[in-house]
């Protein structure tokens, strides 16, 4: 028992140390609960993402807050565990005058709290994961899969592979393997890939990898036997590095692998070593350096308030995603302030409206020091995603580089139709009358 207690102490110490920088919320502070994971199986991604978000909070605070309102936060360690995540949400949702919004960075936790959000009036963002049909704000008024969803990503993947062949119709007769994490996450793109398989006429071969994916010899031997033209890697955690290394082992060219964005970070390629050279993935951030990242280096890390212990991770994929997420949250709060009162602390309901009316065009991106760091985004009640655009990046052995200079979108009309159908089904199940909430 003493030793179990020691683990709890370690987890608490980590959370407490990071919470110190956030301090506790006072009446004039906008409180954001951080359901982070810094220990356990997916800790490296969690520490990068939430580190990026907290770095951006510190930058906003260093610059005087949002019209004078400072951001405060408190971390709760979820270890990427759905039960613990829900517990963290319940613990923090009423703190600091009430949670402004929540971002669990985990599909299990997101599903766990989904039905509580309208009652608690807390908006939830799910950048690049979660339910794709939640883009329909009339059915999911408190859920925001900002920028892009799995379905748009899958559509973008097929568009990119088609472009590589010289036109999407040229994929006809080709073989595409979908190597996926054997979970709801891995199966999420099935409807889109199957729709394309039907309309274009390529052969889709689905091969599951049991969790956590530390062994993939049999899957890759099957792939070698099938001799596909492309392999879509829809992995997570250790599965990604193992897939890349096993591909090298069976001699499958990494250039013909296209990973999901959760398989496209330094944490996925560095352990794979030289085998990862030439490996491509989707992304919703253009790799590179940006004025906002430099400002974080200068004002946050320069003041000793940086959240990452390893400064080399500043500007890494997960860190940049965290900065992007926080930037959009702050834009949502700023929008809400513009409507409901500048310099005031906003409620979850008001921030929900703010998130529903985000408009970050190139001009605004430039002002934020993030021009082209992520696609331009304009949300509405009907479109909580706001973009649907993606890019492709390649690992050159040392860093990620953008392959597609412009943002890529797949068949948006097809995806929107699928979103409408799926969300209507959900609305019928839950007896929800689809409608836009009043501002």
């Amino acid at each position, binding site marked *: 028992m003493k030793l179990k207690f020691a683990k709890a102490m370690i987890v608490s110490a980590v959370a407490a140390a990071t919470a110190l920088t956030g301090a506790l919320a006072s009446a004039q502070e906008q409180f954001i609960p951080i359901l982070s994971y810094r220990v*356990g199986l997916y800790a490296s991604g969690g520490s990068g993402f939430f580190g990026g978000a907290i770095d951006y909070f510190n930058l906003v605070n260093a610059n005087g807050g949002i019209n004078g309102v400072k951001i405060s936060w408190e971390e709760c360690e979820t270890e990427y565990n759905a039960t613990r995540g829900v517990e963290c949400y319940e613990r923090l949702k009423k703190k600091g005058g009430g949670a402004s919004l929540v971002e669990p960075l985990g599909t299990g936790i997101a599903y766990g709290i989904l039905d509580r959000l309208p009652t608690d009036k807390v908006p939830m963002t799910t950048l690049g994961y979660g339910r794709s049909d939640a883009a329909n704000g009339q059915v999911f008024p408190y859920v925001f899969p900002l920028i892009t969803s799995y379905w748009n990503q899958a559509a973008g993947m097929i568009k990119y592979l088609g472009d590589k062949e010289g036109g999407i119709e040229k994929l006809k007769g080709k073989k595409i393997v979908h190597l996926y994490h054997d979970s709801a996450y891995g199966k999420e793109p099935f409807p889109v890939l199957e729709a394309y398989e039907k309309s274009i006429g390529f052969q889709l071969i689905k091969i599951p990898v049991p969790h956590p994916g*530390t062994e993939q010899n049999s899957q890759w031997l*099957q792939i070698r036997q099938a001799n596909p033209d492309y392999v879509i890697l829809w992995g997570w955690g250790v599965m990604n590095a193992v897939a890349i290394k096993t591909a090298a082992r069976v001699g499958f060219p990494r250039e013909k692998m296209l990973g999901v964005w959760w398989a496209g970070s330094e944490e996925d390629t560095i352990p794979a070593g030289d085998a990862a050279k030439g490996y491509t993935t989707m992304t919703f951030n253009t790799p590179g350096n940006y004025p906002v990242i430099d400002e974080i280096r200068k004002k946050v890390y320069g003041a000793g308030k940086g959240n990452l212990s390893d400064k080399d991770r500043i500007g890494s994929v997960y860190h940049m995603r965290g900065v992007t997420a926080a930037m959009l949250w702050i834009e949502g709060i700023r929008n809400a302030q513009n409507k409901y009162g500048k310099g005031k602390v906003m409620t979850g309901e008001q921030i929900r409206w703010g998130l529903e009316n985000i408009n970050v065009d190139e001009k605004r991106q430039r002002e934020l020091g993030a021009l082209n760091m992520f696609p331009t985004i304009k949300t509405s009640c009907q479109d909580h995603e706001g973009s649907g655009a993606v890019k492709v990046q390649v690992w050159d052995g040392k860093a990620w580089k953008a392959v597609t200079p412009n943002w890529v979108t797949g068949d948006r009309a097809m995806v929107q139709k699928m979103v409408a159908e799926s969300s209507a089904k959900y609305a019928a199940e839950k007896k929800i009358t689809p409608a836009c909430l009043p501002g």
Partner: protein
Amino acid sequence: MQFFFEVLIAGLLSGVMYALVALGFVLIFKASGVFNFAQGAMVFFAALTTVGLKEEFGLSLWLAIPITMVVMVLLGIATERIVLRPLVNQHDITLFMATIGLTFFLEGLAQLIWGSNVRRLDLGIQDVPIEFVMDKTGMLISQFDVIAAIICAILVAALAILFNKTKVGRALRAVADDHQAALSVGIPLQHVWAIVWAVAGFVALVAGLLWGSRNGVQFALTFVALKALPVLILGGFTSVPGAIVGGLIIGASEKLAEVYIGPYVGGGIEGWFPYVLALVFLLVRPEGLFGEKIIRRI
């Protein structure tokens, strides 16, 4: 047919990697009757410490490895002193629970000291097909897996010598047979336990280096222990050769099942198939293939 053999050989070589982890369990169970739940955490701790020493202190890998070895031996001795010694004569389940606590402690400690970043470990062994075999047979056999199998063979031979040809080995076997009888003839139980935990720490280091080099050094290394459990059920908890044979059977069967049965049931079966196989073995031979048959007077 060539494909069948390719799958079979890949499975056998994977099995050797599982056996490597299973060996750590066997050593401790054999000498103390404790099922060490912390073996996976020890594998993770050892690999992370090696890479941490290398990256954070700028040490060469070949210096970081012996230092980690010393750390693992000290950890083994400390485990005996702090965790096991106060629990002598307690029920087996108490000792088992203590090792669960040890698991969480080691996982937390490793991440507290070295952080949670995924790290690369390069042992200088290429994980690519052996060209000679590829040219002659058309089969892709990983150079890394073959070298890992050789290392495992050397380790087993060394353990066999330790158990069968040395004074320490005899003491280990005596303690394994009967704690009290061993104590009554003057064998220091605590010393034997400390030695066996230290040796298990060394085995964890070897497993951690090979698995870490293969998959990257990350928390997922703790999960390799799950691959060792069916190996133990099959091979027996007290047999070193059993761990090897069990590993080979589990490795080969899970790969063959995934490739040849998987497509008919939706795939992804290699996660649970070894456990089903182990359960079938339990029905037929509860002590495992090489485990000691326990006969009790009723």
